[in-house]
């Protein structure tokens, strides 16, 4: 696992200057013959905290599912450091998968396993750590998301917000360097949401992770995002891209402005 420790990762991409971590080219997303979005183009650089935003039901989760290789593009392609997921050979694919950590919108914890087993499974599958070492990592990851001591609970025994955080701990279990979060702060109280923002920044700064976040939380969009795309359900394509703070200042598009100012403009 390449753990580059670079402080100030925002600048590191200029230093590395290599291919973008993810580049989405001319992507068309469709369910059967129903086209959801077309002509989506953007790149995510190493160390970015990349925000995917847009109204409810416009296709953000669908875009995320394309980016993690669960759905194949109807048209166009998605490259990871220049490699196309769907054209890659199985070993390359599984190496790529190992580098991704995903938090699903519903948490998606495996319901027949305890939280500890949920977090341990990726470690058991990919590493040769001893059970004792795994248990230590598990309890650390749970503590990181504020769930210390919940090792032996089943997903059905904890609340929705806790499930989300446990899902986050599982996404972090292999220290992945590309993280995908689908509405991580939905259902969290303001304090936990703030802690989550801090955690995302720390992950980026200390582990050099690249983070793609789907979120509606304006506060965290401006606090952590340094790049973004805005998907629009009406025109069926992306209508804005760039740093959210810049978008707030400079975007002329009424839909984007309304979204970013919570309908005040």
């Amino acid at each position: 696992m390449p753990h580059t420790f670079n402080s100030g990762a925002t600048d590191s991409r200029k230093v590395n200057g290599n291919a973008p971590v993810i580049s989405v080219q001319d992507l068309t997303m469709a369910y059967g013959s129903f086209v959801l979005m077309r002509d989506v183009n953007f790149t995510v650089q190493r160390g970015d905290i990349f925000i995917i935003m847009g109204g409810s039901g416009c296709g953000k989760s669908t875009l995320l599912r394309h980016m993690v290789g669960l759905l194949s593009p109807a048209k166009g392609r998605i490259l990871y450091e220049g490699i196309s997921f769907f054209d890659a050979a199985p070993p390359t694919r599984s190496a790529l998968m190992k580098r991704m950590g995903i938090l699903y919108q519903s948490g998606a914890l495996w319901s027949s396993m305890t939280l500890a087993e949920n977090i341990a499974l990726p470690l058991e599958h990919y590493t040769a750590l001893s059970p004792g070492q795994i248990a230590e990592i598990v309890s650390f990851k749970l503590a990181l998301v504020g769930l210390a001591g919940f090792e032996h609970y089943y997903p059905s025994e904890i609340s929705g917000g806790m499930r989300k955080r446990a899902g986050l701990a599982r996404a972090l279990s292999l220290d992945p360097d590309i993280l995908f979060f689908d509405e991580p702060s939905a259902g969290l109280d303001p304090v936990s949401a703030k802690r989550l923002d801090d955690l995302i920044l720390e992950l980026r700064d200390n582990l050099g992770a690249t983070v793609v976040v789907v979120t509606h939380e304006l506060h965290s969009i401006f606090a952590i995002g340094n790049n973004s795309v805005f998907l629009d359900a009406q025109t069926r394509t992306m209508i804005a891209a760039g740093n959210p703070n810049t978008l707030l200042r400079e975007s002329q598009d009424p839909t984007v402005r309304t979204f970013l100012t919570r309908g005040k403009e």
Partner: protein
Amino acid sequence: MEILHFDQISDDAAIVRLSGRWKTGPQLPSASELSGHLDQTPATRRLSFDTQGLTEWDTGLLSFLKSVMRECSARKIDVDRSGLAAGVRRLLDLAMAVPEKKDAHRSTKSESFLSRVGSETIAFIQSAGEMVAFVGAACSALGRLLLRRASFRTDEFKLLVQESGAQALPIVSLISFLVGLILAFIGILQLKLFGAQIYVADLVGIAMVREMGAIMTGIIIAGRTGAAFAAQLGTMQVNEEIDALTTLGISPMAFLVLPRMVSLTLMMPLLCLYANIMGILGGMMVAAGLHGIKPVSYFQRTAEAVGLNDLAIGLFMSIVFGILISLAGCMRGMQCGRSASAVGSATTSAVVTSIVAIIMATAMITVVCDVIGI
């Protein structure tokens, strides 16, 4: 007094007067009255409202007004909303803030009979293809397991063995005991005509061991364990749990489907053996209880009649059923859509598929055994 009244103030302008109580209920007029009026006065270009006499209103008024707006915009008539109360205007604005999505409505037009037959046929061919693909994937996962390139969690496996084996014992006992009992009950009445009651042991023994034990176990397990597999995997599909496995690079085939297939395929012959014994006991109950045949002679007769090949055929069938039921259950679960109702139909379809498969396999095995003479 009428609550809706049209006033044509000039050739191209009309006023809609609303008065009285506009509370949701059958007494409210529908917007079609407006279109009737507009049909008579096609020159109308402007429409305004007068709500002086309006005493009470709720959604009934709002939905009427929304239909009026839609009707007017279709006819290119300007609507002046200043006559409406401020609250009504604001709520209408909220309802119209997001333009209607044209293609969000599913087309509900009825298909012709021929095209329905056509699309059903295509769907059937597709599902047959999917079935073959699923069986292929399961075989390759099994191959990898045997070559020790994959593994599954032993804890989960033990639980599955318990679930599909031990926990099915009560229902399997009850049903196969009753089947044995019924077979003996009917058989013995006929055999009595020839004074050959003792041969009921042959009848029950061979029928149970060779066919009925396996078939009854198969049908019970299809309804019980096959349905459970489909529901478990379907729910995991709905909760994105299967996606979470896939994106981690863990094959759901190896991790979820194989343990279920292996456990059920191991448990089925054991359950079948047990069902055979229970069926024979049921037959003996009738013979001993109602017709005074000694249990010892009943067992002796059974041992003489039932050959090893009968037992082998029964057990072989039960292994085949185990594979078929677990395949059908897991396949329907993995193909499940993303809603709670999809889990329900996955479960139903798993049971139907398994039972059809069981009956077809029985027919084939019976014919083949007959041809090769065992």
